[in-house]
């Protein structure tokens, strides 16, 4: 690319952060596309109770790939990890404690 000269002529610009190789991006992209097809294919099968967990599992794997590679979390500071984990921890609290009500309402009272 001829246009790669920095606009602030004179300064040497080095990347602040890790630069991911294109091959990694393409591999992740392929995995995401395959995951999409897989989740559609799995939904056409009758797997009984397993349909929903499988769909969820594929979605979680896809999301993890996007987060780790496209969003550069793999090469980010520990703080980024903490922030991200906190968000999912809080989401987990919201779900687990709410369902602690819904899933035990039908239990008998002694």
């Amino acid at each position, binding site marked *: 690319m001829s246009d790669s000269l920095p606009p602030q002529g004179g300064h040497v610009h080095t990347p602040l952060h890790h630069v991911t190789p294109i091959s990694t991006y393409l591999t992740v*992209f392929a995995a995401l596309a395959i995951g999409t097809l897989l989740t559609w294919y799995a939904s056409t099968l*009758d797997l009984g109770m397993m349909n929903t967990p499988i769909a969820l599992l594929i979605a979680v794997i896809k999301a993890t790939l996007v987060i780790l590679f*496209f969003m550069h979390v793999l090469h980010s500071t520990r703080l980024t990890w903490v922030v991200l984990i906190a968000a999912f921890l*809080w989401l987990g609290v919201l779900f687990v404690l709410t369902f602690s009500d819904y899933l035990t309402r039908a239990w008998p009272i002694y």
Partner: protein
Amino acid sequence: MSDLAFEHGEEHPPHPFLQHHFEDLGQQHEASTLGMWAFLCTEILFFGGVLLAYWVYRIMYPAAWALGAEQQNTLAGGTNTLVLIVSSLTMALAVRSAQLNNRRGTVLMLILTLIFGTMFLGIKSYEYHAHWMEGLFPGAHWHWQPKDPAISALTPKVQLFMVFYWGLTGLHALHMVIGVGLLLYILARAWRGDFHAEYYAPVEVMGLYWHFVDIVWIFLFPFLYLIPHVGAHHVG
């Protein structure tokens, strides 16, 4: 988050995009990305709240949920998933080009991202239009009924499903529209040559937002289009 007005530091001219209250571009970059991550935390809980309600009712009314998902155009939804994944790839490559001082590459990849983002919204509007015509919009306009009159009791619950369908995809589409607007702004700046290896935080932050919106759709696709019939298979 660019701030052209800076008042101090006449000693040696600071970088034109360094805001006055930061020491250097590194600090500014770290602040911007952390700010976006913190915002995404908020977003996770924002979508998380409505997904919680979705799951409560999905567990309560599995048959209605499956029937609702059957009304969706899986081909359109699947295509849109792929479209968004491609746009995420081009977005990631735009950030990479900015990291490597490649102005032309950044501009090209941002344009592609913009095209795929708009394509997603186009397909989504096509789906919305179809739902509207079929009477699948909740509220006064609702006139959809299941083909099999034996399960017409499910109709209010299917309407509840469609509330979540419109709500979740609508919220997601709103994020896409905002994303497209931000992309235009970032594109203009990239065109002008603002970004380079030391200063590309706006592209990076844009990317984080865009990928997040992609992740939301990765979950919405199976949640809204691919719900299995539990127990009573092939009903309706």
